[in-house]
């Protein structure tokens, strides 16, 4: 059996052993199921919708408050609204289901694109070295000179407030980290004995890079990507919460919590369903990916793999 297949099977075996990684994987799969089944679980435009939005990501809302308060006041969970409604009567259950798709979109898209750019820049910089390396690294240094959320905020203000621009801003802020990571790993692996052996045997530069260096340099990226998805969703939720991301009414977990802030302490009530439920979703989503990333880290690092 080829060593890589054996190693992969070993990785699966180790994952099955660790309870936390099973939990992480289950959580992630649970959310995948929700995302895939969204049109079934929460059909767009139910009968009580006030406005039939054409965009399925805009949450439907009834024309009056089901629990009898004002139209702006959130109403607690009830027969028509399993999770209750938020400010302006947006249905929270719908927001949670379709918000899962939004969360995946944010996490996967940003991580994937930022990693792609980071890989390209990092590989080129590490491969050519010299002045090209210096220029690229200076460039990443400049972006990394700013705390991430603050620079992302500046970008969003410049591009205009929307979820797509938040994604773009997060990519711009995120790729330097990935570039530095892959560059560091490549430089480390380049010094390993097996690379020197491959060169001595006569492998071309390209073969050495793609057959020997990259496969060994890539797994920190995988770990970083998995952990990054959780963090990305938190950051995007924060930006939406601050009012810089998805517009009001969009099915985005952070955005729903944003409006809940207005009702904390009003008339001595806290309307917990408006922030508890979306918050639990964000928290567990991020937790799932973090647990998975941790499990990957424990399993993929060759120095502690077989301890």
């Amino acid at each position, binding site marked *: 059996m080829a060593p890589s297949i054996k190693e992969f099977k070993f990785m699966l075996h180790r994952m099955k052993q660790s309870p936390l990684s099973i939990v992480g994987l289950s959580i992630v799969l649970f959310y995948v199921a929700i995302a895939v089944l969204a049109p079934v679980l929460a059909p767009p435009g139910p009968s009580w919708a006030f406005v039939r939005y054409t965009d399925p990501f805009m949450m439907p809302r009834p024309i009056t408050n089901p629990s009898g308060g004002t139209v702006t006041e959130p109403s607690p969970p009830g027969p028509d609204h399993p999770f209750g409604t938020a400010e302006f009567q947006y249905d929270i259950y719908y927001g949670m289901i379709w918000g899962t798709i939004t969360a995946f979109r944010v996490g996967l898209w940003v991580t994937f694109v930022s990693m792609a750019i980071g890989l390209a820049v990092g590989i080129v910089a590490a491969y050519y070295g010299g002045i090209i390396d210096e220029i690229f690294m200076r460039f990443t240094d*400049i*972006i990394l000179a700013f705390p991430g959320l603050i620079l992302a*905020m500046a970008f969003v203000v410049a591009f205009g407030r929307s979820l797509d621009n938040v994604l773009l801003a997060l990519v711009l802020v995120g790729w330097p980290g990935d570039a530095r990571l892959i560059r560091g790993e490549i430089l480390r692996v380049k010094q390993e004995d097996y690379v020197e052996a491959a060169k001595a045997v006569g492998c071309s530069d390209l073969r050495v890079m793609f057959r020997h260096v990259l496969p060994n340099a890539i797994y920190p990226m995988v770990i970083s990507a998995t952990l990054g998805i959780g963090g990305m969703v938190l950051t995007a939720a924060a930006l939406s919460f*601050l009012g810089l991301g998805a517009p009001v009414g969009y099915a985005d977990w952070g955005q729903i919590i944003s409006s809940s802030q207005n009702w904390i302490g009003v008339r001595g009530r806290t309307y917990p369903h408006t922030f508890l439920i979306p918050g639990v979703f964000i928290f567990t989503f991020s*937790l799932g990916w973090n647990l998975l990333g941790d499990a990957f880290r424990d399993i993929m690092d060759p120095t502690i793999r077989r301890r």
Partner: protein
Amino acid sequence: MGLRAFVIRRLLLVIPTLLGAVLLIFAVSQLFPVKSRVALYITNPQRFKPEVIERTIHEVGLDAPVYVQFFNWLQQVLGGNLGWSETAQLPVSTTIAHYFPATLEIVIFTAPVIIFLGIYLGVLSAVRRDTPIDHATRSISIIGASLPTFWLGILLLAIFFVALGWFQPGRLSAEGINFVYTSPNFIKYTGLMTVDGLLNGQLWITIDALRHLVLPLTVLTTIGVGGIIRLMRSSMLEALNKGYIVTARAKGLAKKEVINKHARRNALIPTVTVAGLMVAGMMNGLMITETVFAFGGLGQWSVRAAVNLDVAGVLGFALFTGFLFVISNLIVDILYAYIDPRIRLD
């Protein structure tokens, strides 16, 4: 090379980084229409008026080529002029100076807690590996990393403010604010309410300020301590496996001494770096925490500026925090070189 040569070299490297940071902010500013950018250059709001705005644009040089604009702006920034903030109705630099003490007060109390608690729990976790303590600490760590900052803040507010009434948002209670800002006897020596309360002999102000710091501190610590715990734990585990530890034990040194004197000291090295990175994380977290708790600091103002498209405010804030971050990284690097002599030989 010696420590001094390293410090000098590192200091010189800061200059192109800072220059690059200014360049990046300038590039972002170019994304805005010319009329919005006027706010970046002037501190007199009269010059914004539609009647005179064209003249102002010309005076300020916004119709000149891009590189000329950049040099003009660079000169101005080095002179301390960051423009006019619409949201604060003050020059940006004044606004930053005004809101900075509140933010600084949070940082002064939170950073030591995160660092020392993180180090302590990380070491504990490593030394008692795979025990319930270890699992509990790692749980705290990963839960903290998965919690949205703003959600934790809202949750704590709902429980401790609305339900229990123990703590309130804001920086001081209403009586405190009234006293601090209107009483002729209260002199703001530092801008930090905890310190000023003591210096003015008004202990209740200090206690009031501390009470309002509890919730923001809890939020920031819960989120931030996880990273330090994790790093300290792994570097401690690595250090404990090193040969010199076994030697020390074989020589007969007490376990406690070995842990504290030898292992921990070496394990602290990567933690110093993370503590520096933590500064960035705190700035991110502060924006959110200050907004949730209406603390009246730099972070809260910056969010307001962003939401209101206050160009000069947002960019000025980004530049300011960028500078702070670069300087703190510099300090960390020098500290790192001081602790670990191997780094200087790089």
